[in-house]
């Protein structure tokens, strides 16, 4: 009975180990791809710097308002693994943030209608009539906000309008790196999960192995 359990446990350990090794191999492959893409990106940045000038491609060129164009979604799966995947931020999201910022930053009068003017006290009747009119008509000037729907700015524009092709290549390399890094993050968490499962099943197997001599000695006594 214990022997059968031990066989089952040994098979499980083998299975988990193979799975773990597969994940490790995949991680290695993705790492190599990531490293070469980053290197390509740096090379392109260096080329752009060479053609634009040393200080034209630096941290000083970053915009004062930066909004993300890519976001990562983390989804926890049933087995406890976390799945990361990147997604482009849609325009609606940026509008929301714009709304937020405008609500914070708007200062000063928001009315755009004509304000009341003081009338000369020429004749009372006229004035009364005017007041009546006002009370009836007085329009509550509704504040009209003109929102500036500026599109999300492409980070390439921080470095100029006509940027060299190499900077565009750098951008595309780093975009790929971002996607790949989400995949690697998923793989890393999966690998750590598998590792934990493997350690648990190895402990289980060891506990069963310790039971075997005890069971055998019981049988010899009988």
């Amino acid at each position, binding site marked *: 009975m214990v022997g059968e359990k031990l066989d089952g446990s040994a098979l499980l350990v083998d299975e988990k180990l193979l799975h773990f090794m597969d994940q490790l191999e995949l991680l290695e492959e993705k*790492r190599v791809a*990531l490293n070469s893409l980053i290197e390509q990106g740096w090379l392109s*940045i260096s080329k752009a710097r060479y053609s634009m000038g040393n200080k034209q*491609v630096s*941290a000083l060129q970053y915009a004062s*308002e930066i909004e993300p164009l890519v*976001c990562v979604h983390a989804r926890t799966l049933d087995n406890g693994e*976390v799945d990361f995947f990147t997604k482009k931020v849609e325009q609606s999201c940026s509008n929301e943030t714009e709304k937020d910022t405008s609500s914070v930053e708007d200062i000063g009068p928001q009315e755009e209608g004509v304000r009341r003017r003081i009338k000369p006290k020429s004749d009372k009747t006229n004035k009364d009539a005017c007041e009546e009119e006002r009370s009836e008509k007085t329009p509550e000037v509704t504040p009209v906000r003109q929102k500036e729907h500026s599109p999300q700015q492409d*980070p390439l524009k921080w470095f100029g309008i006509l940027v060299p092709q190499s900077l565009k290549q750098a951008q595309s390399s780093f975009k790929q790196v971002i996607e790949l890094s989400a995949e690697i993050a998923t793989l890393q968490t999966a690998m750590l999960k598998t*590792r934990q499962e493997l350690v648990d099943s190895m402990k289980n197997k060891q506990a069963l192995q310790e039971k075997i001599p005890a069971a055998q000695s019981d049988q010899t006594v009988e």
Partner: protein
Amino acid sequence: MAGRGKLIAVIGDEDTCTGFLLGGIGELNKNRKPNFLVVEKDTSITEIEETFKSFLARNDIGIILINQFIAEMIRHAIDAHMQSIPAVLEIPSKEHPYDASKDSILRRAKGMFSAEDFR
């Protein structure tokens, strides 16, 4: 899951940060706090560590990318982080190629066959 998702943070040298920001991961939030740190020669380890910890504490960050040579400076802080979100990824830098034997995650995986795991 709802909403716009999480951000990718970067701690790295100028070119690494520039590259990732070109890729569109940069953000300056309402408090003008960026999700990136450009590490210069004169950036102190304390500053790097504090930034890393602040990124860990932010719940809008999903992945932290860090140059491996910078990760080496704050290795204890990286090793202490055991949660899966945010995930910490070590990446190479221009002067320092990626060394798998230094990677926190791979070292954890390597430790699988050590005697400590069975205690």
